[in-house]
């Protein structure tokens, strides 16, 4: 059980450990920059990502012949500014990514705690349902659900989140199984602490760190899936710009206008890279065996 000052001390150590890993620093910095850009860009540009200028379509980026500073990264097939669309697309991608992970995390942790702590029939039931989810191809599941429900941001978040709960639930259940046998849990139980209090105050904080690492890595996955679904036309409804849809729409023009696919592709790549670097660093920092500090 971690309380007050002790908990703070451990978090501080984790952060320090993170600071020692160059990958985590680069990833974290990059991610922070990306998040800041995506939150703050409306202060610098009020341009509409949907504003079309059909006669200026397929204008190349400014450093290329025919480009202009009015559209630094060029325009797409309907004359919309690519830079503005990438900026707006970042909000969609990051929002969907983090929100879906929250949904997945929330449901996964809850089910994992119940399953691991209570065991028995409830455990079997939850784990068998998890097996069914795992046996079902993820992409197929999301596509069929979206095809039935229709595509909206909310549906997308729910579908991506709810089809990804299994990983969390299994991780949490594993941790709970070992933690619930620890002395402090037994002690709490012996003085008559109710189960929900034990779960909330004693077990939950102790399963958080693996979930945190997992969540970081899954954000990257979810962003890629969102792009994939948008690429297939099953993601966020048009005309809202998303990186995946920009790829899909630009694909047709790949031989005439390289910037339509390359730049959003680059945006996806950088974001995923940042998140993965941070995730790796976090895993090392949270693992006491790798952290090399006495406990």
């Amino acid at each position, binding site marked *: 059980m971690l309380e007050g000052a002790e908990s703070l001390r451990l978090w501080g150590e984790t952060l320090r450990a993170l600071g020692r890993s160059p990958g985590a620093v680069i990833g974290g910095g990059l991610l922070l920059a990306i998040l800041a850009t995506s939150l703050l860009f409306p202060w610098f540009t009020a341009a509409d990502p949907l504003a*079309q200028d*059909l006669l200026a379509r397929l204008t190349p980026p400014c450093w290329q012949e025919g480009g202009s500073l009015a559209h630094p990264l060029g325009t797409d*097939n*309907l004359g919309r500014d690519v830079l503005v669309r990438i900026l707006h697309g970042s909000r969609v991608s990051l929002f969907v990514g983090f929100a879906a992970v929250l949904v997945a995390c929330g449901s996964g942790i809850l089910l994992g705690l119940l399953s691991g702590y209570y065991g028995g029939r409830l455990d079997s039931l939850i784990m068998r349902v998890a097996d069914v989810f795992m046996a079902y191809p993820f992409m197929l599941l999301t596509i069929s659900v979206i*095809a039935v429900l229709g595509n909206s941001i909310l549906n997308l978040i729910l579908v991506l989140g709810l089809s990804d709960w299994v990983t969390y639930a299994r991780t949490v259940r594993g941790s709970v199984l070992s933690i619930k046998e620890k002395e402090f849990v037994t002690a709490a139980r012996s003085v008559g602490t109710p189960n929900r209090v034990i779960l909330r105050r004693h077990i939950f904080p102790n399963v958080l760190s693996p979930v945190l690492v997992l969540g970081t890595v899954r954000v990257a996955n979810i962003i890629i899936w969102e792009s994939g679904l948008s690429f297939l*036309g099953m993601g966020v*409804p048009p005309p809202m710009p998303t990186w995946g849809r920009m790829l899909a*729409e630009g694909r047709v023009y790949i031989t005439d206008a390289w910037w339509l696919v390359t730049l959003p592709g680059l945006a996806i790549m950088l974001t995923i890279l940042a998140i993965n670097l941070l995730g790796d660093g976090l895993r090392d920092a949270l693992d006491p065996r790798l952290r090399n500090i006495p406990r």
Partner: protein
Amino acid sequence: MRKTAIILAVLWAAALAVQPAAAKDPDTLVVVQEAEPVGLDIMQSSIQTTMSVGYNLHDTILKPQEDATVKPGLVEKWEKLNDLTWKFTLVKGATFHNGEPIDAAAVKFSFERLMGDALKSPHRGKLNLFKGVEVIDERTFTMSTSEPYAPGLYMLAQYLFIVPPKYVQQVGDAEYNLKPVGCGPYRLERWVKGQEVVMTAYEKYYGPKPAYKRLIFRGVPEEASRIAALLTGEADVVSGIPMHQRPKILASGKAYLTDQMGSMNYLGLNTYEKPFNDVRVRQAVNHGVNRELINQALFQGKAILCRGPISPRTFGADPTLKPYPYDPEKAKKLLAEAGYPNGFEARLAYGTYMPQIQEQAEAIAADLGKIGIRVKLEPYERAVMWERYKNRQHQMFIYFWDDAPEPDRYMYSLFHSKSRDYYYKNETVDRLLEKGRTTLDPAERAKVYHQIDRFLYEDAPWVYLYVIPEVYAVSNAVEYKGLRDGYLIMSTARPRK
């Protein structure tokens, strides 16, 4: 030992995969379309890419022409007995690929198969004014209609395919769809699903022999791959060439372009429900779409703006009509008069399989936004789009038809309430369409269609968009003229000297 075998197998598979295309046989013609056929029985499908394959295996009794007239085919001569009846005489000695003779009984069998309930042919609606085939002798038969039917011969030329009675009865419809025996210039050699349909020239074909001994159809969904196949010499004829790729193909000096069926795009409106039940709103939308700009930007100015529902390239289009001018102010005024001074929200559905559709839909939605109509885009997959269309679930929808030279072929299908009353129904239009198909004098008939065109122009159940002239790209080594109203008839292709 086992490991070595596995490694060898993997290497062998890899070698197969990267094996360069064998040097092309000069007697072989390779056609690459967007999709492989769904079946080979031409009676069972109306998908263009599928029918283009089927048309080389099968023949109709007459050959349709671009001006909606017909030329002799399996029928060498015909005469009109009265306004309702034609008498036809078949060519002598024609046979199916399996040797069965092509006689009047085969024509009767084919017609009955096409119209029968068992086959559920998508083509039967096009011939439903014909009552049947009367066999007179081995080579002569008559066909009559229930009322005078002006485009009758043309419709027979397009859709009355002749199939061998004995073989069909022997193998059944499902098997025939895989292994058809037709009477066309080519016979089926093999169909490797997912790869290719291989045909060889039929030695005993009754008509002019095809120049190429072997004909191969492939389906390649990626347009870039299709074009690459053409430019590297792997393919001779390629379909599905978007506008922006055309200059590149011409500039390569390796291929040229020839006509394909046009794609007449339109934006349908649900006239049964608010707000599009008001003609002023429908006219406002027509004034609110800047078709000229869309044409310039997306189709390099090569599309033909539509005036009314009848394509400017079809018989019977009223030449005095002008396309609705782009006039957002007038559109807003019309909307205000109709009680929508602040516009409204509307859904716009379209099928994601249509070429360049996403950019068209977004451009149209942006235009409508300027007159106050806030559009929610609804992209649908082909089957879902169709289901929702039939179930009257669309509010605004983009669909297309090829702009055939014969107006009855699409006007009746799309506007007559007995054919489709999903989103629009009008007694005047019904009456005029019936008059149009039963008026035999061409000048009179043209007047009827002018009336229909003008009436629908004003009543505006659609937003009239544009006709996109589609093309095939053909290798410079091949001489081939595509048909604006037809399929890929490869027996007319010749090596270029």
